[in-house]
């Protein structure tokens, strides 16, 4: 892995036993042989059990695809998610177990989440009422990552309940349309669920963030966090797609062009394009995603009008912005607002 550049889909850095073993067990319990689950990945079950094997994101995603296809009953992602947090990475899980409130847990997830959930980046944003926890998959694609998103939200809600937090007022947003098993979401996550939101994340009421958890231990938490810091090379904790997304997001008013991004990453534009294509995305898609997420966030939290958003995202006028918004979501900003209240 080149320092400074986010990981690619071929980089082997995911400890297979931490991520795949639980899923293999679940599959077996549901009558699917582990070899079938691993079909096409080139991984052998025996190697996973040896606890040494590192696999790459591509293999991991293929395992997820197999799981989704082979295991009957649509709850497997939600059950599997319960295994992922506090997780099996020693430093990360000891920090998580020492978290003294939801805020600690979220901060930990934002900074070191890759140790437990390697393919998902967590991003926190605050407004007067809520904290918005946004999930961005390593591929940068909100719509095609349903299984991964399901596992991560299940993991988060399960660890918060385990450690004593309330998850009653949480409001979930999912980018993709309603799946044919909405009841799984309802039972595992709660009653406030919106599909077709064109962003993945959850609004958590601020008063939940600081409610104390019984097992919290601040000193232990801080110690484990700094140990995590040393365990994780700071720049390698996101995929290349997530990294480019982030570069675009922080300068969303004047986003750098493809050439400039490539230059900042010390890559040629052609190889940046190729590496992004390997993740199944492109510069333009990531730029659209960054703008879309921004717009949706401000619509939902502040009820911003098209004019304000056009200004915020540096569009010439609101008509241009409206046209873009329609291209991203298939809806006008007004229709989006009326369809799904925050």
């Amino acid at each position, binding site marked *: 892995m080149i320092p400074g550049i986010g990981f690619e889909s071929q980089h082997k850095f995911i400890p297979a036993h931490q991520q795949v073993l639980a899923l293999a*067990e*679940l599959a077996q*319990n*549901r*009558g699917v042989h582990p070899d079938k689950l691993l079909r096409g990945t080139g991984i052998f079950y025996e190697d996973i059990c040896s606890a040494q094997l590192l696999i790459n994101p591509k293999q991991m995603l293929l395992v997820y695809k197999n799981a989704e296809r082979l295991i*009957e*009953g*649509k*709850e497997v992602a*939600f*059950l599997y998610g*319960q295994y992922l947090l506090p997780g099996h990475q020693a430093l990360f899980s000891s920090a998580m177990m020492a978290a003294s409130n939801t805020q600690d847990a979220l901060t930990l997830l934002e900074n070191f989440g890759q140790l437990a959930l390697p393919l998902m980046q967590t991003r926190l944003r605050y407004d007067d009422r809520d904290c918005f926890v946004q999930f961005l998959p390593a591929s940068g694609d909100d719509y095609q990552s349903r299984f991964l998103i399901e596992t991560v939200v299940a993991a988060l809600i*399960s660890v918060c*309940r*385990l450690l004593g937090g*309330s998850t*009653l007022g949480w409001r979930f947003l999912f980018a993709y349309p309603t799946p*044919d*098993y909405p*009841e*799984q979401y*309802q*039972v*595992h996550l709660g*009653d406030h669920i919106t599909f077709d939101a064109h962003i993945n994340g959850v609004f958590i009421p601020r008063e939940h963030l600081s409610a104390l958890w019984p097992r919290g231990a601040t000193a232990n938490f801080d110690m484990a966090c700094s140990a995590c810091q040393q365990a994780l090379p700071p720049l390698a904790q996101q995929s290349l797609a997530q990294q480019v997304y982030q570069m675009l997001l922080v300068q969303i008013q004047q986003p750098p062009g493809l050439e400039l991004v490539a230059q900042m990453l010390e890559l040629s534009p052609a190889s940046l394009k190729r590496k992004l294509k390997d993740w199944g995305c492109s510069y333009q898609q990531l730029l659209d995603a960054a703008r879309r997420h921004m717009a949706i966030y401000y619509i939902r939290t502040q009820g911003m009008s098209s004019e304000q958003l056009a200004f915020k995202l540096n569009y010439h006028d609101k008509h241009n912005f409206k046209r873009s918004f329609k291209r991203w979501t298939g809806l006008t900003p007004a229709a989006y607002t009326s369809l799904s209240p925050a």
Partner: protein
Amino acid sequence: MNAQLKQHAGKLILLAIIIHLQLLLSLSFGETKSWSQIDWLDIAGEGGAVWLCLVWLALLVSVRPNGPVTNLLFGGFACFLVASGQDLLDEVVRFTPEMAWNDWAESIPMPIGMVLMTFGMMSWYREQQALNLQLQKRERGLRDHRHIDRVTGLANAQYLRKQLTEEIEQARHEQLSTALLMVDIDGFRQVNRRLGVVDGDRLLRELTEILLLNLRRRDLLCRYAGDRFAVVLPATCQTMATLIAGQLEGVVQHFAFRASNSDQAQFHTVSIGVAVDGFKIAEPGQPPAEQLLEQANYQLAKVKDQRVSVAA
């Protein structure tokens, strides 16, 4: 799959011996035809019959448990196989008219097979009637294997929606009210964490049996999702539904569950949301089944909320 085949091992070995004997006898006593004498159209037709008999046999042994019904059906198909096999051999081996056993092998097994099949089908019918009685509270009138939950063997939420829609429509026509219960196990997440999914699944299965035993014959139990069950109570009023919900809560409370690694009994409680399709929920636009589901889930959330605040 192996275990499935093993229970039919005796029958399969016997059949293999008979077929081999048949082949050996035919080839050693008959006179093999030359290529030009063979009628390929007949080979294709009669070979097809043999092939189909083999497919039937394979399907039979791969799904049916051992027992009298299976044995009868197996015997029937085996006779068909012998008869059509001899018919096929006829095409490649010439028999002299003195060898009458060739004709026997062709014509005698067929009627025997027919008789066996007839008896087999009759006892299958009786077996199915007995099974239907067992399945009554799991499926109401409609069987669709795509909607069966693998863990509990109950129908899933899709089936529930279908049944609920039909039930409400009919009940409204007859001016009856339909009740729906949502049964949710308290703290099921902890069970999965503490004991693992294997025991969690077993708890779900055992609770399924308990709930089924305590329902009326016309009720339908489904697995909604996760640890939530749904019960459709046709022609039931609010009072009766609440009474049944109380009974279910009671029996679950007294059910001693034992984890696979310990003899210590563990007790669980359920929260139940009750909703009745009546005049109260009649929002136009939304299908009544969805409204009833929503209402039951809402009532369940309310019950859960109260429990949490009482505990805290």
